[in-house]
C-alpha cells in the first residue's frame, strides 16, 4: 500500500447503520415470550423497610412475578462485588434489592415482571411498602463526623477507605516556602447522561442452562466475571453481548443491580426478561461522578516556583461502593496531582465515604479532571497572589520536554513521553495569548467583564500494565486481547475485547490491521462486544482502547504476518529469513518479482497445496497485550469568556487547545473525541451539578433541572495536535477519549475567575452559574 492507512482520516464504518436507524441498541431487541421488568425504588434516601405488601401487584392480571431483596438472597444471589479492593477497605454489602434498609433514593426495593411494559409499570403503584425513615447524610465530609447517620455497620464513621500517597517532604516545603495558599475546593457531583439509558435483556434457556445477557455495557467480559460471581451462573454458560451502546462515559462499566435482577428473573421464569431504564430512574440508579471536597495547601517561592502541594480530599462514594469506585479518587487522582509540573513535594490523603446518595464511580476523566481542576485552580491562585501572568507561573513549573525518555514524578508514576512545555507555548501562540490579554485590557476599560483561562494538564490513560495494576489493588486484570483471523480468500475478522460506544473502533482497529496487511479497510471486520465471539477482554474506559486494545491487535497482526511468512517461504521455495512483507506481499529480499500475495498465502493456509504436512496451517493469531506502563497524554487549553455584568451570565467567546494523545490512527475521530470532551468538561464548569437536599432527595432529577450543554452554548473550538509517540506500545498511541474533559473544566473555570479578578474574587466553586457569578461580583457570596 502506498498510502499509510494509520494516521489518515477514514470515514467511520459504523455510520451507515447509525444514520439510517439500523443500530441495534439493547432496547431495540425483542425475543419471543419476552417479559418486562420494572423496579420499585425507595423514595427515601435512608429508611428501614418494615414491610413490603406486594399482594395486590401479584394479583394484577399480566404480572408474572414480584421479587424482593430476600427473594433474591434466598434464591442464591450474592452482593455485587467491588473490583478494586484497597488495603483495609470496608465494604458494606450491596444486594441487588435492599434487604432491610434502603440507603439512597435509587435503591431497589422490589421488582415486577409482567407480560408488557404497561402492566409492569402499573404494578409498581400497587406495591405497598412501609418505611421507617432514618436520618440522612449526603455530604462526604459530614458523613465522617461524630453523630452522623451510619450507613453500613462494616464502615465505622462511614469511612469506606482511607488512602494516602506522597513524595518528597511536603511539610518541609510548606515550612520553607515564601508563601502558602490554603483553599477549599469543591468538585461537584455530576450525572453522566449517556443519551441512551441503560437496558438489559436476559435470556435463560432452561433446556441448556445457557444464560445470555444483552446489555448496555462498555466491557462485557468484566460483566461476565462479576455476574458469574453474583449469580453462581458458570462462566461457560454465560454470554454477555453489548451490541450498539448509546454512549457510556464510564457509566456503563459496572455490573448494576438491574441486570442481575433481569438475569435472576429470566432464570426463575424460564423466559426472556427485558429492563429499560427511564431517564428519571437513570439519574438515581446509574452512577454519578466526581463529588470531592478538598482542602488544599500550595507552597511557592517568590519567583513563582511551586515547591509543594498538600491535599486532603473527602471523596463521596455514595451509598455502596460501585465496582471501580475506590480506584477513582486514589490511583487515578492522588498521584496525578503533580500534574505537568516539576513540583517535588506532594502529599495527598483521601477519605472515601459512604453517604445516602447514588453511588459514585468513574465518569469521563475519572480522577484526572478532579486532579487537574484542583491543581490548575491552585496555580492560578499562586499567579494571583504573586501578581504574575498565569502563563508565566506555568512556564516556570512545567516539566521540560522528555521526548524519548520517561519522567519520574515524585509519586508512583513515571510519565511516558511528552513535550509539555512545547504544547503550552503552541497553545498560547495559537490562541494569540499576548493579543488576547491586550483585548482584555481594552475591554475592561469599556466596562466589560472578560477573562482568559489556561489549563495545562497531563493525565493517565491506557490501563493497565497488569503487574502495576495488581500492585495498586486491581481485582481484575486490565490487559487486552485480540484475535486476528484471516479467511481463505483474504478477508479478516478482528475480535477485540475493547468495546466501542461512539469511539469508532470498527474503523480505527480495521485501519491498524489493513495498514499492516496491505489490505483495504473494507477487507477487515472488527467484532466487539460479545463474550462468545471474543477470546477475552477488559473493555473500554480510561482512554485505554487504542493504547492497549489497539496494541493487542497490532501484535496479533504481526503474528499473523510471521505465521504467513512460514507458509510463503514454502510457496516461494525460499528461506523464511530471506522474505520481507511489504504492501501486502511476501517477497524475496532483493528479488521483488519473486513474491506471493498475502491473500494467496491465506488460501494456502486453509487449502494447502505446497506446504508440507508438518507446518501449522490456518492463519490467525491471538495476542494479549500487557503494556509496560500507563500512557500520559498532555496538552494546554485556553478559554476566553465574557461575563454579563448585570446578570452574571458567562459566555465562552474563544476556545483554543493543543493536545498530545500520542500517535493518532484517525485524526477525524480523535478530533471528535476532543470536541466532545471539551463540551463535557465545560458542562461541569458552568452548568452541570447534581443537587441533593438534606433529606437525600435528588432535586436535579431530570433534564429539566440538570443543565446539559447544548449546541448554542458554544463557539467553534480551535483544536490542534502534537504527536509525541508513546514508547509503551507499538502504536505509540496514548489516549484521546478523556483529554478534552480533563482539560476544559479548569480552562473555563480559570477564565471566569480571571474575569472576576477586578471584583476581588479569588475563587468560587463550580458550577459557575449566573447567580453565583453575580453574587461574587456583588460581594453577596
Amino acid at each position, binding site marked *: 500500500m502506498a498510502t499509510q492507512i494509520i494516521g489518515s482520516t477514514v470515514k467511520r464504518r459504523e455510520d451507515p447503520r447509525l444514520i439510517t436507524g439500523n443500530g441495534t441498541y439493547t432496547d431495540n431487541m425483542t425475543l419471543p415470550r419476552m417479559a418486562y421488568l420494572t423496579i420499585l425504588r425507595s423514595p427515601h434516601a435512608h429508611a428501614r423497610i418494615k414491610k413490603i405488601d406486594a399482594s395486590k401487584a401479584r394479583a394484577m392480571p399480566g404480572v408474572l412475578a414480584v421479587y424482593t431483596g430476600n427473594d433474591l438472597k434466598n434464591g442464591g444471589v450474592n452482593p455485587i462485588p467491588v473490583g478494586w479492593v484497597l488495603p483495609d477497605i470496608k465494604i458494606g454489602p450491596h444486594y441487588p434489592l435492599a434487604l432491610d434498609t434502603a440507603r439512597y433514593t435509587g435503591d431497589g426495593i422490589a421488582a415486577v415482571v409482567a407480560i408488557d411494559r404497561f402492566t409492569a409499570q402499573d404494578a409498581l*403503584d400497587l406495591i405497598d411498602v412501609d418505611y421507617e425513615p432514618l436520618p440522612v447524610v449526603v455530604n462526604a465530609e459530614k458523613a465522617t463526623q461524630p453523630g452522623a447517620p451510619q450507613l453500613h455497620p462494616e464502615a465505622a464513621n462511614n469511612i469506606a477507605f482511607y488512602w494516602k500517597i506522597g513524595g518528597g517532604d511536603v511539610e518541609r516545603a510548606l515550612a520553607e516556602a515564601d508563601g502558602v495558599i490554603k483553599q477549599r475546593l469543591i468538585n461537584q457531583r455530576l450525572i453522566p447522561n449517556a443519551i441512551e439509558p441503560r437496558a438489559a435483556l436476559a435470556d435463560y434457556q432452561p433446556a441448556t442452562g445457557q444464560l445470555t445477557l444483552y446489555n448496555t455495557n462498555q466491557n462485557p467480559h468484566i460483566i461476565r466475571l462479576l455476574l458469574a460471581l453474583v449469580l453462581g451462573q458458570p462462566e461457560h454458560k454465560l454470554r454477555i453481548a453489548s451490541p450498539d451502546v448509546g454512549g457510556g462515559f464510564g457509566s456503563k462499566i459496572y455490573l448494576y443491580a438491574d441486570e442481575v435482577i433481569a438475569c435472576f428473573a429470566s432464570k426463575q421464569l424460564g423466559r426472556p426478561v427485558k429492563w429499560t431504564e*427511564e431517564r428519571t430512574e437513570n439519574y438515581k440508579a446509574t452512577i454519578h461522578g466526581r463529588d470531592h471536597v478538598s482542602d488544599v495547601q500550595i507552597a511557592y517561592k517568590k519567583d513563582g516556583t511551586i515547591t509543594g502541594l498538600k491535599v486532603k480530599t473527602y471523596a463521596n462514594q455514595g451509598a455502596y461502593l460501585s465496582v471501580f469506585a475506590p480506584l477513582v479518587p486514589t490511583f487515578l487522582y492522588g498521584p496525578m496531582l503533580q500534574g505537568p509540573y516539576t513540583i517535588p513535594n506532594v502529599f495527598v490523603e483521601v477519605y472515601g465515604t459512604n453517604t445516602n446518595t447514588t453511588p459514585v464511580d468513574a465518569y469521563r476523566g475519572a480522577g484526572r479532571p478532579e486532579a487537574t481542576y484542583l491543581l490548575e485552580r491552585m496555580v492560578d491562585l499562586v499567579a494571583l497572589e504573586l501578581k504574575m501572568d498565569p502563563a508565566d507561573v506555568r512556564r516556570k513549573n512545567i516539566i521540560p520536554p522528555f521526548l524519548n525518555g520517561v519522567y519520574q514524578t515524585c509519586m508512583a508514576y513515571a510519565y511516558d513521553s511528552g513535550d509539555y512545555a512545547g504544547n503550552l507555548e503552541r497553545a498560547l501562540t495559537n490562541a494569540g495569548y499576548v493579543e488576547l490579554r491586550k483585548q482584555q485590557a481594552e475591554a475592561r476599560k469599556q466596562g466589560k467583564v472578560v477573562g482568559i483561562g489556561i489549563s495545562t494538564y497531563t493525565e493517565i490513560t491506557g490501563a493497565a500494565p497488569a503487574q502495576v495494576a495488581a500492585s495498586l489493588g486491581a481485582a481484575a486484570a486490565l490487559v487486552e486481547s485480540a484475535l486476528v483471523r484471516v479467511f481463505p480468500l483474504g478477508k479478516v475478522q478482528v475480535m477485540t475485547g475493547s468495546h466501542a460506544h461512539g469511539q469508532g473502533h470498527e474503523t480505527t482497529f480495521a485501519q491498524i490491521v489493513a495498514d499492516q496487511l496491505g489490505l483495504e479497510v473494507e477487507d477487515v471486520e472488527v467484532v466487539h462486544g460479545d463474550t462468545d465471539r471474543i477470546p477475552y477482554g477488559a473493555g473500554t474506559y480510561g482512554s485505554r482502547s487504542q493504547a492497549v486494545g489497539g496494541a493487542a491487535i497490532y501484535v496479533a497482526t504481526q503474528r499473523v504476518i510471521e505465521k504467513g511468512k512460514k507458509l510463503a517461504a514454502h510457496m516461494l521455495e525460499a528461506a523464511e529469513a530471506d522474505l520481507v512483507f511489504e504492501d501486502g506481499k511476501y517477497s524475496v529480499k532483493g528479488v521483488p518479482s519473486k513474491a506471493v500475495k498475502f491473500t494467496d498465502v491465506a488460501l494456502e493456509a486453509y487449502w494447502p497445496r505446497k506446504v508440507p504436512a508438518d507446518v501449522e496451517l490456518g492463519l490467525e493469531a491471538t495476542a494479549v497485550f500487557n503494556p509496560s506502563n500507563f500512557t500520559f497524554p498532555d496538552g494546554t487549553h485556553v478559554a476566553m469568556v465574557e461575563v454579563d455584568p448585570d446578570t452574571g451570565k458567562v459566555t465562552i467567546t474563544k476556545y483554543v487547545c493543543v493536545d498530545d494523545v500520542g500517535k493518532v490512527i484517525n485524526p477525524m475521530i480523535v478530533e471528535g473525541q476532543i470536541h466532545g470532551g471539551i463540551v463535557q468538561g465545560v458542562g461541569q464548569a458552568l*452548568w452541570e451539578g447534581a443537587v441533593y437536599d438534606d433529606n437525600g432527595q435528588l432535586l436535579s432529577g431530570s*433534564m429539566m433541572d440538570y*443543565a446539559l450543554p447544548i449546541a448554542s*452554548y458554544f463557539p467553534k473550538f480551535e483544536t490542534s495536535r502534537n504527536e509525541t509517540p508513546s514508547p509503551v506500545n507499538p502504536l505509540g498511541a496514548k489516549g484521546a477519549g478523556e483529554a478534552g474533559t480533563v482539560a476544559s473544566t479548569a480552562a473555563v473555570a480559570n477564565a471566569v475567575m480571571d474575569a472576576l479578578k477586578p471584583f476581588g474574587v479569588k475563587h468560587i466553586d463550580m458550577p459557575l*452559574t*449566573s*447567580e453565583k457569578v453575580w453574587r461574587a461580583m456583588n460581594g453577596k457570596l
Partner: protein
Amino acid sequence: MIPPRFEYHAATSVMEAVGVLGQHKDAKILAGGHSILPAMKLRLAQPATLVDIGRIKELSRIIADANGTTIGAMTTHAMIAASNDIRQRLPALSKAAELIGDQQVRNRGTIGGSIAHADPAADYPAVLLALGAEMHAIQITGSRTIRASDFFVDLMTTALKSNELLVDVRIPALAPRSGSAYVKFPQPASRFALVGVCACVTLDDKGVCAKASIGITGACASARRATATESALLGKKLDAAIIQAAAAQAASGMDCLSDIHASAEYRAHLVTVMTARAIQAAVARVM
C-alpha cells in the same frame, strides 16, 4: 415514561369538546400535550379523561384585523413565531413564541395549552398581561371573555372553570407610536424563563411616555404587572436614567420564587435587569 390509564375523546368541534368536558369529572383538555403529557408520564398528573382538541381546525388560526389579532387556542408556538402579521404588529409576542423550548416543542405546543396550564415560568403570560389580551372561553351554556389581568390567578391556576374551554386569545392592536418587546433570562436546562419581561410603551408626539405596561413571568407563582415601574415611566421622556430608575422598582412587593436555579433575591434582581432591557427595546421599536 408510561402514563396512567385514561379515557380519550377526540373532539371534532368546540361544542363536542365542552360537552365531554362538562360530563366528565376530572377531565382535562389535551391541546399540544407539551405540559400535560410530561406530567402524566411522570405520573404526577392522572386525569381520568383527556379531551383532544387537536382536530378542531378553527382553533388553529391567526386572524389579524384593524383592531387586533385573534389567535386560536390550538395555534402552535411555531405558527406564532413564523407569522409575519405577528412579527410586525406584536413583536414581543413573536419573540416570546420564538424563545419557547426548542423547535420541536414549538411545533407542537400551543398558546392555549400553555396559558391554560399557567406555569409560573411560561413566557406568554407576561406578554398577554402587558399587551392587554383577552381570553375567550366557551362552556356548554355560553361563552365569556376574560381579561389577562383576571385570567392568571395563581400558581398554575387560571380563571377558567373546569368545564370551560379556552378557544382563542385576542390581542388589541397597539396604539400608534407604541413599541413592545419581550426579554427573557432562560433557565439553562429547561429554558423556561427564570425571568421573562414584556414591556409595551406608547409615546406621545413629544416623546413622552403616555402609556406603559409591563408583564413579568418566572419571578412569582403567577405572572403579574410591574405597576410601580409603569407609574414611574408615565409622563417622562424615557432616557436611560429614567428607565433604570423605573426598572429598579419592578420587583417591589414581589414574593419571588426560589429554587435550585435561582434564589428569590437573584430572581428579583433579574426582574429589574430584564425590565430595563425590555423597556429599552420597546422604546427603540416605537416608530
